[in-house]
């Protein structure tokens, strides 16, 4: 990693939501003091199960929600609490691709309306320049023949085509950074590879950085330069993709790997509870303690710090497997 603080720097990010627990006001913490950085042109895969806080991190980075504390810096600019025009401007640099291409497009707008809107609003394009930008974008994301597809409504498109519209719309503002939240999990298997490859090609063409949120370790490794594994709102382990898959140090990463279909090293899963992690504010110890086969008293009392195993590999565990 370079000396620069990276394109995206997240420091001690904390997000809490109010809930009612037994009639009393309480808070859950889907993002519990998380720090990480993403370099220019780098893809960071964020892996975790439902409820681990991965989507909340994506939304905080997009500033769809405002963090409770901590800082988010993008291109040396603190965006943690910006509002109004500053936020609109920020969205020129950061865009999001959502999981559900059926829900993220407006059913009564055509393909060209979806893509032209950001071109006009954020790039002030008009007339011939607008048409040209629209056509080259649609072509770039593989929505051809352009003349035929641009006038279609979302319901006339397949899932893969819709996701391409969503990608074209995100690219329209010339962003530096994309948050892709499970962009392929709702698509058919034969279509997924095409979308992953498209995102990969765009990374090179536009020097894009991505936060790729997924529950699938295989695609996380394929697309991501690094993988960050989350559980119960905290980072459990982060390493270069190949290293993480080959030399997992955290028991949770091991569990995930063992559970992933297609892993040639099939080991029986240790019998642990499948209970969802406790996200209540003020909990003690490691979030994974209840499910961990190597749990000790220390794990239940004190949350482990994220510490380096070596240069690009960190793990938050009192008893890492190294």
């Amino acid at each position: 990693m370079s000396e620069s603080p990276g394109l995206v720097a997240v420091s001690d990010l904390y997000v809490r939501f109010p809930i009612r627990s037994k009639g009393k006001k309480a808070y859950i913490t889907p993002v519990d003091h998380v720090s990480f950085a993403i370099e220019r042109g780098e893809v960071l895969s964020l892996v975790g199960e439902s409820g681990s806080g991965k989507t909340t991190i994506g939304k905080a980075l997009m500033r769809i929600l405002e963090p409770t504390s901590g800082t988010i810096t993008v291109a040396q600019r603190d965006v943690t609490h910006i509002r109004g025009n500053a936020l609109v401007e920020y969205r020129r640099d950061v865009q999001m691709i959502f999981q559900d291409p059926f829900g993220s497009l407006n059913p009564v707008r055509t393909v060209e309306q979806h893509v032209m809107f950001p071109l006009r609003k954020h790039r002030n394009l008009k007339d011939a320049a607008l048409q040209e930008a629209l056509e080259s974008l649609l072509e770039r994301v593989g929505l051809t023949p352009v003349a035929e597809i641009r006038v279609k409504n979302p319901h006339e498109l397949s899932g893969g085509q819709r996701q391409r519209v969503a990608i074209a719309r995100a690219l329209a503002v010339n962003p530096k950074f994309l948050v892709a939240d499970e962009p392929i999990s709702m698509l058919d298997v034969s279509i997924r590879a095409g979308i992953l490859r498209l995102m990969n090609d765009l990374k090179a063409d536009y020097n894009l950085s991505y936060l790729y949120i997924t529950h699938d370790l295989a695609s996380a490794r394929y697309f991501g330069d690094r993988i960050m594994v989350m559980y119960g709102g905290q980072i459990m382990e982060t390493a270069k993709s190949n290293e993480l898959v080959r030399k997992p140090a955290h028991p949770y990463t091991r569990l995930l790997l063992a559970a992933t279909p297609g892993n040639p090293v099939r080991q029986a899963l240790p019998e642990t509870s499948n209970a969802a992690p406790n996200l209540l504010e003020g909990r003690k110890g490691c979030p994974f303690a209840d499910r961990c086969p190597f749990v000790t008293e220390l794990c239940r009392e004190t949350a482990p710090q994220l510490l380096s195993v070596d240069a690009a590999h960190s793990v938050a565990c009192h008893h890492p497997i190294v």
Partner: protein
Amino acid sequence: MSQQRPVLELENVSVAYDSDKGPVQAVNRVNLTLYPEEIVGLVGESGSGKSTLAYAIMRLLKGSAYLAEGTIRVMGQNVYNLSKKELRQFRWSQMAMVFQSAMSALNPVMTVEEQIIDTLRTHRRDMSLSQARKRAEELLNLVSIDLKHLRSFPHQLSGGMRQRVVIAIAIALDPAFVIMDEPTTALDVVVQRSILDQIQEIQRYVHFAILFISHDFSLVAELASRVAIMYAGRLVEVTNSGRLQLLENHHPYTEGLLRAIPKLTADEVTIEGIPGYPPDLVDLPTGCAFHPRCPRVFADCMTDRPELYQIEDGLVECHLFKGAKEVHYV
């Protein structure tokens, strides 16, 4: 294996439904046989007809969908020759189904125990309440759910526990054959794995055959002994799952799917999608339905429907294998 009496026999099964644009063939002349205690995977993309086929087997086709031709036999019995009353006895005692969404398969206002007892007593009228209670306990033990959850409502259970309850209900009457339609798709990988392990373990001592429907190739290859691959309503290939490790001698669609999945640990990390999109069933391509997306397409593919060829111990429906032994169903 062929000595045994088959559990499920599908002969030239076609399912159609009426649409504004005329009848649509969702399942097109499918032939498949399942033997006792066998797990067969059925893989296909959305709209390929895999769930429709499952509903046809269970005789659960609704609305304008109907069995257009062919025979479906379960334990030698033609499912479509049963009277309504016989069908109710037959379902669940001979064949059962696990649906994808556990939350909607369970009744939200009934406890786990009530739902199991309800199933037992609906399909087996002579069972007493105390027998049914006892069986409900056995079943929960079988799927490793604490007996305290007998009194729980579905919303009090986690997604994985709900799906275990649904599985318990499916095997409540010891069916010979269970269809599982994407039973773990909505679950996290760790929970998915523990449920699959559990299914295999239960199957080891309860002995039922499973038709396991999924879109996840790697998962099915691990679980099933044979895998059937469906495209646009047709079974384009049936292979033993071991052969799915190899990229050759398959239907081009199968090969495409195998290349489209990133491997977790393989050294090469390139993947290739299949160009184009799955076809519209209302307007199927001529000849082989896969030909517009096929990298090895030639003239015959556009005009003639391919024959089914025997390749090793599997079947492939593709012109590339012309010259191999043809297989004809009556």
